[in-house]
C-alpha cells in the first residue's frame, strides 16, 4: 500500500481558514490528505492539540494564522509563534522530525499560497516517511 501522509491542520478562522476556503472554491489542486480543524485564532492552539494529533497518527501538523500584525485578537499569532518554537524543540527531542511541524501565516486572500504550502509539506512528508509512534498500540496490548 502506498504511503499517503496525513496532515492535521489547525487554521485560524479569520485569515487562514478563509484562505484555505478560497483555495477550495478556486479549485486549486492540493493534496487531499489534509484534515482541517478550524480554530478561532492560532493563539488558541494548545500544545496538547499538536501532541494529540501526532499521537493519533498524523504524519505532519500544520498551524496557520494571520500575518504578523493582522491577528483579529492582536497578539494571538505572536503567542502562537512563541509556543510553537518551544513545541518544535520538544518534538524534535522526542524523535519527531522538526519538518513534520510547521507554522505559516496565510491571509484570507492567499488561497494559492495555501495550496502550495500543503503540496510542499506533503512532499516533505513523503520523503520523511510515516511517523512511527507505535507506543499507544503496545500499551493497549499490555492492558489486554
Amino acid at each position, binding site marked *: 500500500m502506498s504511503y499517503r501522509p496525513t496532515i492535521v491542520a489547525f487554521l485560524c478562522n479569520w485569515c487562514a481558514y478563509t484562505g484555505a476556503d478560497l483555495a477550495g472554491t478556486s479549485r486549486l489542486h492540493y493534496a487531499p490528505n489534509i484534515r482541517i480543524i478550524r480554530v478561532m485564532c492560532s493563539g488558541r492552539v*494548545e500544545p496538547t492539540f499538536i501532541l494529540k494529533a501526532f499521537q493519533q497518527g498524523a504524519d505532519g501538523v500544520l498551524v496557520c494564522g494571520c500575518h504578523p500584525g493582522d491577528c483579529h485578537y492582536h497578539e494571538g499569532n505572536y503567542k502562537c509563534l512563541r509556543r510553537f518554537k518551544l513545541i518544535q524543540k520538544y518534538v524534535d527531542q522526542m*524523535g519527531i522530525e522538526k519538518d513534520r511541524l510547521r507554522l505559516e501565516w496565510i491571509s484570507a486572500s492567499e488561497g494559492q499560497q495555501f495550496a502550495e504550502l500543503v503540496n510542499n509539506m506533503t512532499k516533505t512528508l513523503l520523503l520523511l516517511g510515516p511517523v512511527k509512534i507505535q507506543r499507544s498500540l503496545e500499551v493497549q496490548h499490555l492492558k489486554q
Partner: protein
Amino acid sequence: MSDSSIPNPKIKLAVYWGSACGGCCVSVLDTHEKLLDIVNAADLVFWPIAMDIKYKDVEAMADQSIDLTLFNGAVRNSENKHMAEVLRKKSKVLVAYGACAYMGGIPGLANFHSREEIFKRVYEESESTLNPDKVRPVEEFEVKEGVLKIPEFFNDVYTLNQVVDVDYFIPGCPPQSERLVEVFTAVITGIGLPPKGSVVGALEKTNCDECLRKKTDNKVIKRFYRPWEIEDDKETCFLEQGVICMGPATRGGCGVRCVTGHSPCRGCYGPPPNSTDPGAKMMSSIGTMIDADSPEEIDEIIETIVDPAGLFYRFSLPGSILGRKVL
C-alpha cells in the same frame, strides 16, 4: 446499617513495589505515629518489605479480598506486570501510589531510549565493564546445576494505569506522608471518596498558588538561566528570575518542598487538575512569558531552555501524550 457500638472491621491493606526506589515505602513508614493509626485500622495482608507473605499466597487469595492496595513503582518488567495484574484482581481499590506508578516517574526517563540502547551502555560500553563476549542477562539461562530465570525487561516503561485499571492516583516522589493518612481515612470510612480515576492526596491548586516566593502575574522573560547561572536571591519566584520552575504546571500538595530548599520545582506531583500532560501545560505557560516577537529573538530565548523534554517530563514521560521517544 452500621451500628456505632460495633467497631468497623479492619480493612485489608496491601503495599507493593514495582520498578521503584523504595522511597514510597519509606514514605508510608514516615507517617511516624500515624502509622500506628493505620495499623490499627488495617490488617496488612501483603507488604514485601515488612511481611512474610509471598506471591503465591497473594495469588491464592480470593478475588476482591484486599480492600486497598497501594502500588508504587512503574511497570518496567514482566514481574511488575504480573503482580499488577494479580493485585488488580485481588483488590477492591487499587491506588497508583507515587510518581512512578502514576506517571512513570524518574525510571520513566528510560523511554528516551530502547532496551537495546540501555543494555548496550550498561553491559558493553560502560568504562568499567569488561565484556568482550558481549554477554547480556537473559530470561532463562542454563548453568551446569540447572536453569536460572529472571524477568523480561520491557522495551518501554509503563504507568500502572497503562497496564491495569486504577481507581485512584496519589502523586508525589514520594507522596507527602500526611496526605496518605487523609486518603486512608476516606477509604476506611467511605466518606469523601471522589469518583474513580481521581487524583487524591493532593490539592486542586498549583504549586505556584502555594508558593511563598514573591511573584507578579506578569512574568516577562528575556532569557532563561540554568540554576547555577544566576545568584538566586532566595525570595523572588524562580521563573521571574528566569530559572525554569515547574510550579505552574504542577499540582500542589507537597508544601512546595524543593522551592523551600531553594531548588526549583521539578514537577513530581504531576499536572494540575484539568490537564493531563505536564509538559504541554508548561510549554503553554512559558510561551506566554517569552518577551519577544521576532522569530530570531524567540529562537535565541528558547535556545536557553536546554532540555525541554527531560525537564518538562522529568516525572511523567510514560504517562504523557507522546509517551516515549520515537525510535
